[in-house]
């Protein structure tokens, strides 16, 4: 499959990158590893006028172990994150999620954590070739007005299948977004629109530069389900974080379910079932998992494989498994 034509821009530092983004805005796309962007371009889902490569920006590839957080540059390869001792120790959910991304041969170079977070939402009615999408009305994400995944839907129901984002949201991670004249930090949980067409709340001239994972006394875990044990995107996944006090009482809980909606779903109601409960109270885990399932089920549509009924049932299972692992 051919890539559409574009102008290739190769900035040598962050400032140059941000200048280019400010100049070209919507007409430019950032190229990191390319596993998501280039495939979408080959399928004719987008045809940017400019490609801005992060190839020279080694300064965005790092893992810093600081006193209160771990900072990860967004161009850091997935393999580096898997190999990172601080990540394994303080952000196990992320470690477990990264292990599942793509395949070993993709993780070291093509797959970057920034790319994983910013991988566009997917839908099996949309992530198709030009030919497949011809001869029918365009869907919302394709510039039209209908949704093939949910009848009568007035907006796009594409699904966020990012392993990394689900784990990071459970960990309470924050993002740094840099623009030419400004730099801002945002909680990952607040980074999403409710719009499947443009799922991320970021400006076209902004660049995602850093991920910051707060260190807590808690433990985290990530579980996912996919058809095969490599390559595939998850059809349902869950990241959880539990913090307990000296008497093993849960003082803080976060439950995030991924691959079930337009963004990873931070499920406060499910998490609230755990607060004040004992860390070893398996029955409570089950309550929380069931609550997670009913919340998540409202968002999901049949558009990433398997059956909707199965994926909903598996929300409960993945949350339960993740909680039990802690």
């Amino acid at each position, binding site marked *: *499959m*051919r890539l559409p*034509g574009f102008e290739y821009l190769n900035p040598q530092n962050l400032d140059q990158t941000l200048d280019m983004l400010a100049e070209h805005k919507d007409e430019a796309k950032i190229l990191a590893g390319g596993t998501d962007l280039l495939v979408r371009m080959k399928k004719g889902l987008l045809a940017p006028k400019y490609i801005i490569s992060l190839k020279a920006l080694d300064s965005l590839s790092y893992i810093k172990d600081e006193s209160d957080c771990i900072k990860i540059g967004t161009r850091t390869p997935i393999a580096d994150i898997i190999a990172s001792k601080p990540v394994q120790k303080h952000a196990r959910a992320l470690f477990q999620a990264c292990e599942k991304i793509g395949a070993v041969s993709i993780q070291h170079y093509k797959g970057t954590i920034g790319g994983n977070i910013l991988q566009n939402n997917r839908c*099996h*009615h949309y992530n*198709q*070739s030009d*030919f*497949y999408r*011809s*001869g*029918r009305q365009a869907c919302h994400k394709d510039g039209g007005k209908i949704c*093939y995944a949910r009848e009568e839907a007035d907006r796009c129901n594409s699904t966020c299948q990012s392993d990394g984002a689900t784990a990071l949201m459970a960990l309470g991670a924050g993002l740094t977004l840099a623009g030419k004249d400004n730099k801002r930090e945002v909680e990952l949980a607040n980074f999403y629109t409710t719009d499947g067409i443009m799922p991320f709340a970021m400006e076209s001239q902004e660049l995602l530069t850093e991920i910051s994972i707060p260190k807590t006394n808690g433990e985290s875990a990530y579980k996912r*389900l996919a*058809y*095969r*044990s*490599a*390559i*595939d995107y998850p059809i349902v996944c869950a990241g959880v974080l539990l913090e307990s006090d000296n008497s093993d009482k849960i003082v803080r809980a976060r439950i995030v379910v991924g691959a079930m909606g337009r963004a990873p779903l931070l499920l406060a109601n499910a998490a609230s079932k755990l607060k004040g409960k004992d860390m070893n109270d398996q029955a409570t885990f089950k309550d929380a998992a069931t609550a997670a399932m009913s919340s998540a089920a409202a968002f999901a549509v049949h558009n990433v*494989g*398997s*059956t909707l*009924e*199965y994926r909903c*049932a*598996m929300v409960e*299972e993945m949350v339960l*498994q993740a909680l039990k692992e802690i």
Partner: protein
Amino acid sequence: MSDYNIIGKRMPRVDSRAKVMGKVRYSADIKLHGMLVGKIKRSPYAHARILSIDTSKAENLPGVKAVVTGKDTEGVKWGVFGYTRDQQFIQTDKARYIGDEVAGVAAVDEDTALKALDLIQVEYEQLPAVFEPMDAMASDSELIHEDFPNNINIHVNIDTGEVDENFKKAHYIREDTFTAPEESYFQAEPYAVVARFDEDECLEVWCPNGGPHMKSKPLSNSFKLPLHKVKIKKIAIGGAFGGRSEICPADYICALLAKKTSAPVKIIFTREENTIATRQGHAMITTHKTGVDKEGRVLARDTTCYMDGGAYSSTGPIATTVPFLSMEQAYRMESVRYNGYRVYTNKPIRGMIRVHGRGFACGLDTQLDMIAEHLGIDPVEMRLRNSRQPGEYTNTKSLVSSCAMDETIHKAVEKSGFKEKWGKLPPFHGIGIGTNSVQTGFPMGIRGGSQSFIKFNEDGEATVMTGVVDNGQGNDNMVVQIAAQELGLLPEDIHLVSADTETTSSDPGSYSQVSTFVGGQAVKNAASNCKKKLFDVAAKVLKVEPDTLKAENRLIFVKDDPEKSIPIKKVVRISLLNFNSVNAEGGYWPKVDMKREWVSNPYGQMCEAFSFGTTIVEVKVDPDTGEVEVLEVTASQDVGKALNPLVLEGQFEGSIAMGGQGGMLTEYHEWHEGRCVNPTMLDYKLPLACDMPKINNIIVESIEPKGPYGAKEAGMSIAMSAAQGYSAAVSNAIGVHMDSFPLTPDKILTAIKNKKQQDTAK
């Protein structure tokens, strides 16, 4: 049998050195001077009348060299059989599935060709479309093909009599329906074709094929060229699995573009095109009604199968029959009735595939297990009581000469520990057995035989010419091995010329498991004839009788006195000095019943040999997710004779991946209004290295009297029985006999939940 120094040995394949060096050329790798890029315009509608096609804009685009539509064709319809001629290579009146060919372009580069496709304006009138065989048969809207009422493409009816009477005698009768959706080949090589007309106005074509002669005939018809002017050239092929056996419209379109532009043209399919516009496996709905006696022996069976054939006939009559054949070959039945309906739908065209009829076969074995359970017999005993025995006739009157079905069962049972494990495994841990049989060849009329030529060069090396094609399974090596063994040379002394219509004779092709049996045998006969000539000369030199001689390791020697020998090279030179070249031909035509016809007369000798396979599978099911972990697979096949165990094991292992791991757990197509939702390698779930189980291979040799060195077919009855073994194992693990395949986690979980509810209710 250790009389052979090359046959039966674990010989690394002759083609693998070039392959590991990246030097082998496949169709897409071909570069010719001035070559253009071809692309095909396809219908985006499932069923639509073509009102007009405007190609002017495309033709005026700089860089576009030609545009072809149905107008450039003679409107000729093609079909494998006289009564199945229903497909034009470029549609003129209407499109019948999403992907149907409506035009082709040739341009200087891919970007230009793609732009040109967009500029071709086709005006359609959409027609009501049907996507399921039951709907298609009941539909009162416009037929997909007007000559086929109720959209029934093929009806195969087989009735050996006394079915109803025998049901009356039966001790126990079951009727169950089993379903499975479409699957795909996913050959690693996407389809590609290169065509050009040479200076003598001969059409040269390079493309993946299951037999070059099956491509040349339709092209010769279409271009009104004599057969010798259509040259299908030898080229490396990246997998077939049944999906490369017929002419592809792209072959014709590519050749037409080459003709119009007087330049070579290359068309490479996208992965999506390979999925939707070559062939797929049939979706099937199969009902088996089986009556048995008290011992579990099958007295009567009545099977009805509805197959979703897609938009055109393809190999329809064969496809409609083969699942039945596997059944009647593997199992004895007192009486049987079969009604197979292949129904047109507005979906991609379906052909023969490695596991042809997974729902049919797995349903059959599942039902046997259900009957066994009812009678209190274990699955192994149930199979042994019904298994095919040597010397018997199938219900449709094919003599089965060699058959070691029981031995494959016994050996697989022993190796897998089936007896020790059956009924004693922990919850959600299961073991299952599948048995099957595959035919070695079909009656193919004038194309049923193969002929080979061998010539010696003055350096004592030999050139072997054969029509046998290598789709990736190792047929080139098989031919070299046989020739080297027979001629007394080393494999490196054999120069192979194969699968090229200009230089090699007709051959039945590699899609009916017949390459070794027929093509290999033809080579063996040619080599044997050639050897006779060598022996005549050598005998004179050595002053012995020719029948006392043996050839091996480049030497001809006296069997009882090996010191008395002469190099083959020297024999060749002596022969040449005596005004005789050393060459010979040999052929093989299987003695099948030429009156047997798929629809009009489905009785008589089908082929000369049948392979038999048993696969035993052990699994663990996660009761919380429905996921299956396959612990071990034991595959055992009666191959007649293992010509090369190394290659044979590769066929077993690949069969298990495709038939079992993929075919029974993850592989199926999903549809949305005639669109194939998962045409890509991301969305269609082929097995990965990390998901494959431990495999035990057991080779059983029954030495088929008619096969070369006793060989039959290799690997296919493992692919089939693997599917059955996988489904039986999962059913055993969860305590539910599954009737819808493949066994994806969602289905398994639902079955577990339903069973739990039923058990609680009890």
